[in-house]
């Protein structure tokens, strides 16, 4: 079996584990932890989509992951600015 194929599957499994860990982290009591966990989930999902699209030659997955990374960043920063207050 091709080693590149195996390593892509291993990466996807690792990213799924990371998504569960980030969900656990987002359940901690502070708002910032929820923000951190949700941003990690979004990025992990985007990279998993990249690997999945590479496996099955789905080119539009690349566009979806680009949008997820960019708009996830914008949303996280916007929420952080609002949560930080005016001081």
């Amino acid at each position, binding site marked *: 079996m091709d080693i590149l194929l195996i*390593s892509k599957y291993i990466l996807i*499994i690792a990213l799924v584990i990371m998504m569960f860990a*980030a969900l*656990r982290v987002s359940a901690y009591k502070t708002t*910032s932890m929820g923000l*951190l966990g949700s*941003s990690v989930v979004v990025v992990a999902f985007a990279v998993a989509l990249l690997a999945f699209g590479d496996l099955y030659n789905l080119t539009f997955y690349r566009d979806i992951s680009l949008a997820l990374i960019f708009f996830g960043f914008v949303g996280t920063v916007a929420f952080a600015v609002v949560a930080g207050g005016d001081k």
Partner: protein
Amino acid sequence: MVVELIQSILLLIAAFMVIVSAVGLVTLSSDRKNAVYGRIHIVGIFDIACIIAMIGLGQYLLAGIYFILAPFTAHAIANAFYKSEDVENNAELNVVEEDDSNPFIVNKSKIQVLEDKDSEKLKADDRFTISMLDIEEE
């Protein structure tokens, strides 16, 4: 063949870093001091793992974009936490509610008003002088 080998090595390194950061995120105790900043630091490792994975998957432009964006995210979250929720380090958030029954618990802002140079109370106190009396023992 060589390119595929390099790609698979990069993906395996990224997977290893992702798992290490996931374990670190879950096992870092909330009782520790500055645990939130520690978790933000761990997420930085995850960000670099994602960048390595993107390079391994051949998405160099996406990796470059995320390499620039990731520190901004971490800084924004840390800044928001410090300004709104970090009671340990941010003295402005340590507001003590005044208790009439206990004369030793006074709001910080009231003390600052009293200690101000232009304070009316301080000017009133300037009318009095302190004299030293020499007590001679017979």
